[in-house]
């Protein structure tokens, strides 16, 4: 469960987050959407502990991301905006590295790696070094290492960005599977149809503020727009920057 309250963050004179509040429940998929520069990535970075808010608080399963950093880190699986691999390590070694950093090891870890390799369809390249991997392969490895410790909360920044249709569908299916297991999934996207298709709840960010939140139907009622794109443009008040 994710709880964000009164989160503010500035970089110099630029206000990235101007007091945002939202919740993401277990067993639900929450979509975070907004124009470029709306503050999506900053909000996620605070949630996954690499940044600290100027004020306000972010909590994962009631643990504060600043004062209980490691407790939070054990409870989250993250696909960040930066998702680079080590060119000289194999896919399997990437997953093993993160598993060990989570205190896993031995047969249990190897079994978990096998499960992920199977589930994400990585068999063909699991023992190849990452240099020269396609975007889809990189994404799969990045997802697998983020989930090796079976986190209850998933934070995914643009998980399908740059992927082909088949790979995108595989990611969507993965998100639905996680939801059905009772996980709390928070994901960022700028693809409105994608957000509407797989999210239970949508949080719309614009200029560092939450301008609307609710289910797709609720947003549609609030704005009086039935077309998805019009609906989002209506709440963000912007014709530009998408």
């Amino acid at each position, binding site marked *: 469960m994710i709880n964000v309250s009164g989160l503010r963050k500035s970089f110099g004179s630029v206000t990235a987050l101007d007091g945002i509040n939202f919740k993401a429940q277990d067993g639900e998929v929450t979509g975070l959407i907004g124009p470029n520069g709306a503050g999506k990535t900053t909000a996620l970075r605070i949630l*996954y*502990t*690499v*940044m*600290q808010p100027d004020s306000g608080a972010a909590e994962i399963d009631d643990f504060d991301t600043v004062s209980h950093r*490691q407790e939070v*880190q*054990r409870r*989250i699986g*993250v696909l*960040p*905006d*930066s*998702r*680079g*691999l*080590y*060119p*000289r*390590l194999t896919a399997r*070694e990437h997953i093993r*590295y*993160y598993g*060990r*950093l*989570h*205190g896993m090891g031995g047969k249990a870890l190897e079994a978990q790696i096998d499960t992920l390799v199977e589930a994400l369809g990585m068999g063909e390249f699991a023992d190849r*070094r990452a240099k020269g991997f396609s975007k889809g392969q990189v994404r799969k490895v*990045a997802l697998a*290492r*983020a989930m090796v410790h079976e986190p209850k909360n998933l934070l995914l920044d643009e998980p399908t960005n740059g992927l082909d249709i088949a790979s995108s569908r595989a990611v969507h299916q993965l998100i639905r599977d996680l939801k059905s297991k009772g996980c709390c999934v928070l994901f960022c996207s700028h693809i409105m149809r994608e957000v509407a298709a797989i999210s239970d709840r949508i949080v719309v960010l614009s200029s560092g503020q939450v301008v609307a939140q609710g289910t797709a139907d609720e947003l549609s009622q609030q704005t009086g727009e039935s077309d998805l794109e019009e609906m989002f443009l209506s709440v963000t008040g912007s014709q530009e920057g998408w």
Partner: protein
Amino acid sequence: MWRGIFVVFAKEVVDNIRDRRSLMVAFIYPLLGPLILGVIISMVSNVVRVNPERHVQLPVVGAEHAPQLMAFLKNKGVNVVPAPADAKAAVRAGKANNILVVPENFTAQFGAKKTASVDLIVNSSRLPGLIALNRTLGWLGEYNQIVWGKRISTHGVDFQKLRPLTIKNVNVSSGTHIAEVLLFMVPPLFIFNLFMGGVYLAMDTTSGERERDSLEPLLINPIERWGLMLGKFLAALLFTAAAVAVQLFAFQIAFKLAGVGSFSFVHNLNALTIVGIMLMTLPLMIAAVGIQFVVATVTTSFKEAQTYLGLLPLVPAIPGMALVFSPVQVQDWMMAIPSFSQTLLLGQMVRGESITLSAVAISMATTTLLAGGLLWVVAKLYEREELIFGS
């Protein structure tokens, strides 16, 4: 926590063992210094070594004009040979080290007890030329003095009274040949290598990690930032130590092959001494990796880090280079200066002087303080959220 540090350390070691560039810097570059020094020493030794068994050749133009001088030279063991046709060209080309030219009027001048002149064609830009010049001047000076002594004694003057000064060369170096001076290049080469060995790892694991976009996901794992840093740091330290060890063993082999095996430093450079040198310089290795990590963390890109860190090893090596040409007398306070103290200690070892335990203790203590300080700074830098962007 220690398990996490080890996990990071092991990953970085495996990752970099697979990297040709890291291996080059740690295992091939350290060979270059000993190789070059070994080759130079063996070449210089061949040039400088005076073989008393062999007659030294001196080409002479117009030997027939100065039979007494030739007789004196032959008596000194000099093999007087006819000079090539173009004497100057021959010396310039290095075919002859120097050539003595006796002019035709020598006999007349010398017979009349006047000042007779000879020309000595030399090439002072060549080391063998310089050595030959020194040798020939010695013989001619000696001949000059003998003739002068004889002439003045015919006037009833005791020529010893007119010679207030006799100069004898007393060489105090424990070795005997000039090639050993080149051994003093060991400390600067050692320091340069020490600051070079782990540099690729320091960059790859910090600015490289950021540039590959793999740092941000790594930071989300449940391990303290300082622990993450320490794992990477220890990997870079291991490669630094490997480079230092490789270089020391390479020095040992190169010097033995180059034929300076009789020199005490080379003789003593066994596995135990090498371990001793490594322990003595371990604090400096930590400090070197510390500086590399500070630079690699605050710079925004791999290229920027490379620019600074490429030059870094030169800075601590410069005092050592200067000491090759103008050695200083070692004082205790100098042992408090990290890198300089190790340069001096190694210099003392190379010269075959004994080093004091207190000097080693001061050197290790002050350098450990610096290393600790640098580690603390790097740990603080890793805590900053700017770490993921650089700056």
